[in-house]
């Protein structure tokens, strides 16, 4: 008996490129516009879950999903105990420190000793500043981070940028880059061993897609 494998896919900006890759592998069954959260490709014995990106590491670590697609930023933030065999290449973005233009004009990052930062990424933010000997007061937010400096909630933000358009639109300037991120394939530790052959086949197929020019 082979178990049906479950692949967790992230809602949002990574979903479209992830589905494109799956379709070119001949995997189908997910309707991106639907409100449904669970889909099946019966023929291939695969099940898909559509989840909030930040929840994907948890689903995979606990084995509720065997595999998942998630940004490296979230993996570094959460450090789940999973295998991470493949950089899928798509979904490139950067985690940066940004501040309002007015502050930027008179600011010298080399003189920072204490900063107040709004972010969705407390672990990465804490590590970045503490490695530089800077004390950080963290304002943990869940969305619309760019708003925080405009209303005086924080002086600076740490957030993901793709084109930088959102920063510009909110009068913010990038001061430092913390990391670069792309989408990764993650695999539950037990699944790679107990469902060794179907999981490795799927990973191999994805590898071929990624290697394609």
């Amino acid at each position, binding site marked *: 008996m082979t178990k049906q494998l479950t692949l967790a896919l992230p809602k949002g900006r990574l979903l479209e490129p992830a589905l494109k890759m799956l379709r070119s592998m001949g995997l189908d069954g997910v309707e991106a516009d639907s409100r449904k959260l669970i889909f099946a490709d019966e023929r291939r014995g695969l099940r898909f879950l559509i989840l909030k990106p930040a929840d994907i590491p948890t689903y995979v670590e606990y*084995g509720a999903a065997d595999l998942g697609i998630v940004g490296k930023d979230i993996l570094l933030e959460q450090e789940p*105990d999973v295998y*991470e*065999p*493949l950089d899928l290449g798509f979904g490139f973005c950067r985690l940066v420190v940004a501040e309002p233009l007015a502050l930027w004009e008179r600011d010298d990052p080399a003189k920072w000793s204490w900063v107040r930062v709004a972010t969705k990424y407390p672990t990465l933010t804490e590590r970045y500043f503490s490695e530089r000997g800077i004390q950080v007061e963290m304002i943990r937010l869940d969305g619309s981070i760019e708003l925080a400096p405009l209303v005086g909630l924080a002086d600076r933000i740490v957030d993901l940028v793709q084109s930088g358009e959102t920063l510009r639109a909110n009068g913010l300037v990038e001061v430092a880059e913390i990391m670069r991120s792309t989408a990764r394939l993650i695999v*539950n530790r*037990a699944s790679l061993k107990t469902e060794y052959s179907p999981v490795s086949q799927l990973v191999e197929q994805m590898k071929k897609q990624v290697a394609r020019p």
Partner: protein
Amino acid sequence: MDKRPFQPQLPKGVKIYLPDEAAAKRNVEQRLLSGFSRWGYREVVTPTYEYADVLSLGTDETLQERMFKLVDRDTGRMLALRADITPQIARIVATRLRDEPKPLRLAYLTNVFRYEEPHVGRYREFYQAGVELVGLEKPEADAEMIAMTVEGLQALGLAQFQLNVGQADFFRGILEELKIERGQGRQLQEALSRKDASTLDRLVKELAPPASTAELLLALPDLFGREEVLERGAKLVKNARSERALANLAEVHRLVRAYGLAEAVILDLGEVRGFDYYSGVYFEGYVSGLGAPLCGGGRYDHMLARFGYDCPATGFAFEVGRALLAMEAQRVAVPLEGPDFFIIDFTPEKTLALSLSRRLRDLGAAVARDIITRGLQESLVYARGQRARWALVIGGPKTKADELLAIELATGSERTLRAGELLEAPAKWFSIESGGGGRA
């Protein structure tokens, strides 16, 4: 008087086992321990706490940071709750059993304390059942650990399991070959432990080792699978230490195959988790349905030397909490037994109830009595809730003075009989073996 309301909170990381859960836990522990004793292992009991510096001798830094510590009022020295039993056993062997004939086969069942975030069936206090085999460096000893672990998984009724088997010295040989500093080695190890091919790729480019070493490093995340892995590994490896490790793993695998267990094993040359602790063959057990390993172990030939006695050793442990979760995930039923008899006596003197329960217990039966005065139906509901097999009703309206009514609770079938009949042929009513400690 203290006016604060009673706040029955539990600290994070501990767990209460209510009767059904405790029975399931005990059942798992007994199945494992009785398996260990069939292989000739004898139980040892170690102290719950010891001096922190002594325990630390056999504990790596990450785990040292996670020990629960307290101060010894007598000496002012730091004490620690055991975070791992293996250093304790290593110490016992080095100081108390070093002159005993080898090998030593020791078993244990114990709680372990670690300051860490509770996750997948593991709390800050958790339970382990395991063994240590001390004084043998031969591959047969490693194979015995693997065979016993598989037997343990089978004894728990689990199916679809895999032991992931690695050899710690294989990667050590590669590190030696690279002649890199510790921090770089650590980065390689971290990337490998996640089978993170892209980071590994970057690190290998930075290190720029000879082409053959680079090829081997990049192949490591994929060097797992069945027996063919040994061949794939042998083609890539160029240093003597890794070659020896591979030959040792091949020999252990040959023995595992002789045990008829090749199907239960996956070889993983790229496995580096637990690398700091182990010195040779080591393994983790996974079952379908549980996302984390539920058992694991391996060879730790250098630990006893830290306690002043250079002696090879290997061992493994099951995590009882995770074993229970795995059984639940695979719907393995754990038998939950109530008493054989539940005696309800409506007479004011209760003479028959008391003498009958004593005599049945002497025969090995488990007997509970209803002490609360209530109607028969209520008593029967309670008896069913206790999972009793038979209710014996004395002094009810349906029976004469020297008679009692026996009701089989599962079926509701009734029969009237004399008390003597029950004692003359006890085997018809309950199984004397399962009575536990019966004097029959």
